[in-house]
C-alpha cells in the first residue's frame, strides 16, 4: 500500500501541478493585468450558464416536489454523471493506463502491476472529481437548499460526491484491461484501440436505449400506487438502468435509516468486488496488455524506387497535412477530436431512432415550426455538432514536445495558423455535415431551413475556431505525459467549450424572449444572429492574426 501511495503522490504531482507543466511564457506587467481581465471575462461568461443550470434545477424541483418525487432529481444527476464517466472514462483509462509516457519508467521498477494500476486508477478518479464537480455539486447544494434538508444531508454530501465515480470507473477499468490484453495480440494496435474504444462505448450506450422500462408500457395498479406512495418511485424508475445511482441517492437521502443500509451494503460490496477484480485481473493482464502496446509492426521493405516524393506542396497544405496525419494517426486524438465531432449527430440519431415514441412531440414540433425558427434550432444544433471537438483549442498543446519544429521552421506563424485553421475547420465540418445528414434523414426539414441553419453554423464555427486558437496559443499545455491531458483534460479546451455554450445560451435565451414578447419579427432575429456571428468571426480572426506572432514568440521550450 505504501508503494501505491508513493506512486499516487508522484502521479498526482505530474498530472495536476499544471503550472510546472506548461510551456514557459514570458509576461510583462501589463500582460499579467490582461490575463486577470481575461479570467474575469471567463467568469462573467460562465455566470449565465450557471444561472441557467440553477434555473433548470429549480423548475424540475418544482415539478417533482408536489408528487413527492423530488429525490429523483438527485438520481438523475448522479445517473447522468455516472453514465458519462462510464462512456468517456474509456478514453481516460486507455490513455492514462496504457498510452502515458511514464509507463516506460514504471515497468522496470520493482512494483507489482496491481500497484501501478491502482495508483493510475486513483489518478483518473481524482481527475474525474474535477470534471464532475462543476456539474454535480451545484445540483446537490441547490437541491439541499430548495428541499430544506436536514443536517445529515450536508454531512453526507462530501462522501456521496467522492463515491459517485468509483463504481463506473472501476467497471470501465476492468473492461479496458481486458480489451487492451486482446488488442496486444494484434499487429494493428492503434486501429484496434480506436475500434475497441468505440465498441465499448456502444456496449454502454446501446443498452441505455434498448432497455425499455416496463413501467413505460404498462404499469399495473399496484405499481402505480407504489410509484406515488413511495418517495423513491421515480428514483427507481430513472436509476434502474444503472442501479448504483439508486444506491447512492438513497444513501444520500436517508443515511443509515429507512432501509438505506441495504443500498449502502450493496454499494460497498460491489465496490469491493470490483476493486478485488481489478487487482486480480490487473496483476494478471495489465502488463501483458501494456508491454509492447506502443510498438508498431514493421514489415521489412525492399528498396522502393523511385521514392514517392511530393512535388513541393504549399506551406499551408504542408501544415494542414501534418495536422491531419498527426491527429488521425494518434488514437486518443482521433477519438477525442474527429470521432467526438461525429458523436453528437450519431447520438442524436440513436435517440430519435430508438426513442421515437418519447421524442415524437419534438419531431413533429421541428417539422411544423416556422422556416426561420427551424433554421435557428438547426444552427444551434450544427454549431454544437461542430464545435465541441476541442481541435482548435488544443492545436498547439497537441504538438507537445514536437513544438520546437514549429518554432524553427521558416514558416511564418500566420501561415502555420492558416494550415491549422483549415484542419480544425475540416474536423468541425465533419460534425456539421454529420448533423445535417442526421437531420435530413430523421426530419422532414425544408431544404431552405437547412441551408439557412448551415449558413449561421459555418460562420459561427469559424468564429469559435478562431477563439479556440487564441485561447490555446496564449498558454499551450506542451509538456504532457498522456494524450488525454493534451485534449480533454486541457483547460484551454474547457474554457473554449464554456465560451461556446455561454454564447449559444445567451443568443438562445434572447431569441426566446424576443419571439415570446414579439419584440421583433423572426427574420430580423435571424439577421441579427447572422450579423452577430459574422462580426464575432471577423473580430476573432483579426485578433488571432494580430496576436499570434507575439504569442508564438513568447512560448519558450
Amino acid at each position, binding site marked *: 500500500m505504501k508503494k501505491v501511495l508513493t506512486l499516487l503522490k508522484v502521479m498526482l504531482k505530474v498530472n495536476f501541478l499544471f503550472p510546472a507543466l506548461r510551456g514557459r511564457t514570458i509576461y510583462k506587467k501589463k500582460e499579467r493585468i490582461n490575463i486577470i481581465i481575461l479570467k474575469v471575462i471567463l467568469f462573467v461568461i460562465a455566470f449565465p450558464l450557471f444561472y441557467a443550470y440553477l434555473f433548470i434545477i429549480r423548475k424540475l424541483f418544482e415539478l417533482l416536489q408536489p408528487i413527492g418525487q423530488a429525490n429523483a432529481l438527485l438520481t438523475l444527476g448522479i445517473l447522468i454523471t455516472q453514465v458519462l464517466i462510464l462512456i468517456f472514462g474509456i478514453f481516460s483509462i486507455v490513455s492514462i493506463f496504457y498510452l502515458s509516457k511514464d509507463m516506460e519508467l514504471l515497468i522496470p521498477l520493482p512494483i507489482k502491476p496491481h500497484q501501478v494500476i491502482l495508483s493510475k486508477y486513483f489518478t483518473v478518479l481524482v481527475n474525474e472529481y474535477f470534471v464532475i464537480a462543476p456539474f454535480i455539486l451545484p445540483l446537490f447544494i441547490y437541491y439541499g437548499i430548495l428541499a430544506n434538508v436536514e443536517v445529515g444531508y450536508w454531512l453526507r454530501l462530501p462522501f456521496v460526491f467522492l463515491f459517485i465515480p468509483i463504481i463506473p470507473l472501476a467497471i470501465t477499468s476492468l473492461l479496458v484491461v481486458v480489451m487492451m490484453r486482446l488488442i496486444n495480440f494484434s499487429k494493428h494496435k492503434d486501429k484496434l484501440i480506436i475500434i475497441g474504444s468505440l465498441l465499448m462505448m456502444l456496449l454502454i450506450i446501446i443498452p441505455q436505449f434498448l432497455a425499455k422500462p416496463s413501467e413505460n408500457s404498462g404499469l399495473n395498479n399496484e405499481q402505480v400506487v407504489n410509484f406515488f406512495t413511495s418517495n423513491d418511485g421515480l428514483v427507481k424508475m430513472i436509476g434502474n438502468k444503472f442501479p448504483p445511482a439508486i444506491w447512492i441517492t438513497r444513501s444520500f437521502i436517508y443515511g443509515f435509516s429507512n432501509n438505506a443500509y441495504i443500498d449502502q451494503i450493496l454499494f460497498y460490496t460491489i465496490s469491493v468486488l470490483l476493486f478485488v477484480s481489478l487487482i486480480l485481473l490487473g496483476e494478471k493482464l495489465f502488463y501483458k496488455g501494456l508491454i509492447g502496446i506502443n510498438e*508498431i509492426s*514493421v514489415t521489412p*521493405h525492399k528498396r522502393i524506387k523511385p*521514392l514517392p516524393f*511530393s512535388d*513541393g506542396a504549399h506551406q499551408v497544405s504542408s501544415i494542414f497535412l501534418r495536422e491531419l496525419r*498527426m491527429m488521425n494517426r494518434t488514437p486518443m486524438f482521433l477519438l477525442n477530436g474527429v470521432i467526438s465531432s461525429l458523436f453528437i449527430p450519431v447520438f442524436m440519431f440513436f435517440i430519435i431512432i430508438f426513442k421515437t415514441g418519447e421524442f415524437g412531440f419534438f419531431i413533429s414540433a421541428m417539422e411544423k415550426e416556422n422556416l426561420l425558427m427551424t433554421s435557428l434550432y438547426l444552427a444551434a444544433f450544427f454549431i454544437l455538432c461542430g464545435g465541441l471537438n476541442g481541435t482548435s483549442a488544443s492545436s498547439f498543446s497537441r504538438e507537445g514536445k514536437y513544438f520546437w519544429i514549429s518554432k524553427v521552421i*521558416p514558416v511564418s506563424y500566420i501561415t502555420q495558423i492558416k494550415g491549422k485553421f483549415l484542419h480544425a475547420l475540416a474536423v468541425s465540418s465533419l460534425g456539421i455535415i454529420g448533423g445535417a445528414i442526421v437531420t435530413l434523414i430523421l426530419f422532414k426539414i425544408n431544404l431552405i431551413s437547412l441551408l439557412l441553419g448551415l449558413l449561421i453554423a459555418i460562420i459561427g464555427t469559424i468564429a469559435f475556431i478562431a477563439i479556440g486558437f487564441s485561447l490555446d496559443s496564449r498558454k499551450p499545455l506542451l509538456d504532457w505525459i498522456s494524450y488525454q491531458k493534451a485534449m480533454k483534460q486541457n483547460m484551454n479546451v474547457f474554457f473554449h467549450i464554456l465560451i461556446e455554450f455561454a454564447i449559444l445560451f445567451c443568443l438562445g435565451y434572447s431569441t426566446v424572449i424576443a419571439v415570446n414578447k414579439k419584440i421583433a419579427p423572426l427574420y430580423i432575429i435571424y439577421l441579427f444572429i447572422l450579423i452577430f456571428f459574422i462580426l464575432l468571426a471577423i473580430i476573432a480572426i483579426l485578433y488571432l492574426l494580430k496576436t499570434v506572432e507575439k504569442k508564438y514568440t513568447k512560448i*519558450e521550450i
Partner: protein
Amino acid sequence: MIELKNLSKSYNKGKVKAVNNLSLTVQPGEIFGFLGPNGAGKTTTIKMIVGLLKPDKGSIMLNGLCNQGHPLKCKSMIAYIPEDPEIYDRLTGLEYINFIGDVYGTPAKVRTTLTEKWSEIFGLTNAINQSIKSYSHGMRQKIILIGAIIARPEIFILDEPLTGLDPKSAHSLKEIMHEHCKQGKTLFFSTHIMEVAEKLCDRIGIINNGELMACGTMDELKYMSKNSESLENIFLEITEK
C-alpha cells in the same frame, strides 16, 4: 556567420543565470565546437540562436541579420539538430522529409537526390517508408539529419549531434560537417566528446556557468593553458577554476 553579442538569459525570474553576457563570432567556413560541463549553458545558447528561446539581453546576428528582427529569413538559413531527436512519430520518414522539403522550399528533384543518397549512407533506405514511431533513437537522429541536409542551410546548428549515432554514421556526419564548411558555410555544434572537438573544430569555445571561459583555435587554447597536453586537460583546468 554567427555573431553573439552580450547574450544573457536567466530563468526563475532572474535567479538562475543560464547564459551571462556571452559574446563570440563564428566565421563562414568555420567549424565551431562549443564545450562545457552539464548545465553550463550550451543548449540555452543554441536554443537562443535558433529562436526557441528569447534572450533577455544581447543580440544574435546570422549572416548579418538579427534573428529577432528577421526571424523568418534567419530560420530559412538555419538547420537545427536538437539533442533529443523528438520528431513527429506518427509520420513516416518520407513524410517528414517531404514536410521539411516543403517548408524550406527544396525542389522535389533535389530532395529526391539528397534523400536517396543520405538514406543509403545512413542505412535508412528500407525504413524510410515506415512510421518514425518504429525508429530507434539513432534512426530518428539520422532522419532529422537528412531533413537538415535537404533544407540546404547556410548555417548548421547541432546540439550533441554524435550522441546515439553508430560509428559509421558518426563518421558520415563528420564528413557532412566538413563538406558543409568547405562550401564557405557556418557550423556551430556542442559536444562532450573532446577527441571529436579536438580533431574536427577550427575553433573551440568553452562555457561554464553561463560564461564563455575561453575561445580560440586549439593552439590558442593550448597557449592559454598551463596544462596543454590535450583538450581534455585544458577543459578540466578551465571548468574547474
